[in-house]
C-alpha cells in the first residue's frame, strides 16, 4: 500500500503542506517495503487546475491513500476514479500524520470543497 502526504520540505521532519495541489513535494510511504520516497509535485506551478494535475501524478505513482488537510472537488474526482482514498490530516508534522493513519486514528475526508479553479480573470 502506498500512502502520499503533501509536504513543504523534502525530508521526514517536514510539516504537512496546507495546500494539497500546490505542495512542492509529496512524501510517499510504501507500507510493503517500509520505504519513503519524495516526489516533486510538477503541478505546483500550474496557473490553474493544479489539483487535477497533482491527482494525476499520484494516480500515475500508483498511490492508494492520500492524507491531506483539505481537497478540492475536481482533484477528488480524479483521486476517487483512481481508487485513492482521502484521509484528513490532524497533525502538523508529516510523520505524526503517517503514524496516526497507520494506527487507524485518521478519518476519511468527507467535506470536499467545490472546485475553485484557477480561472482567467
Amino acid at each position, binding site marked *: 500500500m502506498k500512502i502520499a502526504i503533501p509536504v513543504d520540505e523534502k525530508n521526514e521532519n517536514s*510539516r504537512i503542506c*496546507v*495546500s494539497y495541489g*500546490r505542495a512542492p513535494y509529496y512524501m510517499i510511504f510504501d507500507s510493503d517495503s517500509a520505504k519513503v520516497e519524495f516526489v516533486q509535485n510538477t503541478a505546483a506551478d500550474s*496557473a*490553474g487546475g493544479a489539483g487535477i494535475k497533482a491527482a494525476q501524478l499520484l494516480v500515475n505513482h500508483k498511490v492508494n491513500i492520500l492524507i491531506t488537510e*483539505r481537497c478540492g472537488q475536481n482533484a477528488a474526482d480524479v483521486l476517487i476514479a483512481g481508487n485513492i482514498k482521502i484521509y484528513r490530516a490532524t497533525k*502538523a508534522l508529516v510523520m505524526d500524520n503517517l503514524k496516526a493513519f497507520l494506527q487507524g486514528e485518521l478519518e476519511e475526508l468527507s*467535506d470536499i*470543497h*467545490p472546485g*475553485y*479553479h*484557477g*480561472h*482567467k*480573470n
Partner: protein
Amino acid sequence: MNKYKKLLILSGKGGTGKTTVACAFINLAQAKAYADCDVDAPNLHLVCKQSQDSTNTDYYGLQKAHIDPEKCTGCGLCTKYCRFDAIYSKENKYFVDPFSCEGCSVCEFVCPASAIFMKDSITGEMMLYSRPSLFSTACLKMGSGNSGKLVSAVKKQLYDNLDKGCEIVVIDGSPGIGCPVIASISGVDMVLIVAEPSVSGISDMERIIDTSNRFGVLIAVCVNKYDTNIPNTLKIEKYCHNNNIPFIGKIPYDKMAVYATNRGISIVSMDCASGEAVKNIYTKTLEIINKA
C-alpha cells in the same frame, strides 16, 4: 500549529472599507508583518506607508506564444487554429497579440515551420518591504489573469521572511468570492468580514461565510457604515446570531475616515467615531483569535 496568528480581512465587493479596517488593525496591533492580497488593485500601500523602497521580483504566469519572423513562412495555419483571435498578420508575416493569447500552444503544435515557441511571460510584480515592518504585496499587470496563484505567492513571500518574534499577521484579502479569495483564506486562523448594509452586501457576506466555513477557520463579522441602512444592519446582526457567528461591531459612516485615508493616516490615529468603533472590534477580534 503556528506560533503567530494569521488574521484575514475580507469583504464581498470593493469599496466596503476593508482596506481601511486592515490598516487600522495593523496600527493597533503594531503588526510586524502584513500583506495585501488584492493583487488586481492593491491599495494598502497607500495608507500603510513604508519608509524604505521595496524589493521587487517579477511574477510569471502562463507561457505565451511567440513567432520567429525569420522562420515564419506566412502560411497562416496558426491564425486558422487560434480560438482567441490572438494572431494577426501584417505584410504576410504573423504576430501574436499578447493580451489575447491564452497560452494554449495550439499554434505551436500546428506550425509546419516550427516558427512558434512558448515563452514565460511576466504577468505581475511582487513587492516586499522590510522596514519598519515586513509588508508583502503584488500587482498584476494589465490584462493578466491567474491572480489566485499570485495571492498564494504574496502570502508565501510574507511567511518566508517572518521574524521569530512575530505574533500576529494581518492580511488584506481580495474582493469577490472567486479563486483569489480562496487563495487568501487558505491557511489563515481567522477571517474578519467587513460587511456593508446593502442588499448586495448581505448576499456577498453570506457567500464568504459559506466559503470560509469550508476551510474551518474562525469567522467574525462587523458592519461598516452601519447607519446608512439600519434595517439591513439589523438583518446582518440577526443572520450572524442565527448562524452562531460572532457579530463584533458596527462602524458608523464617518467623513473623518475619508479625510484620514486621503492623508495616508489610519482612522485609529485620529479622534473620530469610526476609529473608536474599530478599536472595539479589534479588542474583540483578539479575544477570539487568541482563544483558539
